[in-house]
């Protein structure tokens, strides 16, 4: 068995935050939207460096998906950020009609997926996010395992032309 050693504890969401900032520096068309969870998603560095390219939608996830879909028409590449439950289940209709069916290039970035969200309990723990999004025609589904893979995936989706669910975890690792 190949040996894997534990080097440093780094959360996956910080990989997303770091990747988003780097992608934003590379491509000015990248914009970010967040539904009142900027700190939780580690999107604050992007918001600070590119205030004109960051939209705080408030706790209005359905609107966030509609705004993101609209932004693509002007050539923007929107990254939406909220917890996995509110990125998929809550806004399934908006994703289906305005993003998937309309073939819009929106990156749906979903943190705090699965059980390991922990104390917030069943209302916040989604275990259907991959299934819901997988069934939408044209939707890519990515689920990285750590900081490095999350950062690499963030940079990769930034250069792609397809919409995707990008679902990852919060702080728990190994």
């Amino acid at each position: 068995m190949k040996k894997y050693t534990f080097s440093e504890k780094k959360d996956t969401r910080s990989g997303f935050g770091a990747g988003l900032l780097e992608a934003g520096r590379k491509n000015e068309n990248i914009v970010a939207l967040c539904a009142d969870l900027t700190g939780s998603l580690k999107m604050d560095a992007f918001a600070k460096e590119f205030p004109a390219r960051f939209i705080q939608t408030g706790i209005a996830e359905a609107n966030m998906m509609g705004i993101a879909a609209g932004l693509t028409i002007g050539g923007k590449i929107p990254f939406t950020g909220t917890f996995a439950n509110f990125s998929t289940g809550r806004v399934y209709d908006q994703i289906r009609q305005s993003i998937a069916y309309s073939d819009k290039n929106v990156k749906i970035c979903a943190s705090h997926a699965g059980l390991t969200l922990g104390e917030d309990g069943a209302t916040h723990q989604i275990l259907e996010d991959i299934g819901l999004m997988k069934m939408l025609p044209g939707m890519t589904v990515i689920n990285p395992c750590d900081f490095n893979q999350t950062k690499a995936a963030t940079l990769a989706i930034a250069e792609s032309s397809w919409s995707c669910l990008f679902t990852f975890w919060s702080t728990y690792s190994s």
Partner: protein
Amino acid sequence: MLNEGTDVTIIATGHLVWKAIEAGEQLEAMGISAEIINIHTIKPIDEKAILDSLKKTGCVVTAEEHNRIGGLGDAVAQVLAVHLPSPQEYVAVNDSFGESGTPEQLMKKYGLEASNIVEAVQKVMARKRVLA
């Protein structure tokens, strides 16, 4: 590909990748050689990676922090059903909602630990032997 092996394929995503590595170490101590695949994209699924590995090992355990219905396990099962029917076991949440608890408590209660992967490997390998 995290580890090459010959007896069983373990395909894991997200947190369960780390549990799969732990399980692989425990299996090695038991004399079982596990091939471990860290699959980061569920759709489109890497059919070639799955089939290349299964041609060698003949059985698979999938591991994910998701409902067993509609997740990684089903994506792998769909590939195998069409191209290479093989024994498979799922390590996933068994069609239920979660609850409040620490991540460690929940991973244990919902059967998402390395020990669950080891048990699933033993089960799937027994089924492979029956078929052989």
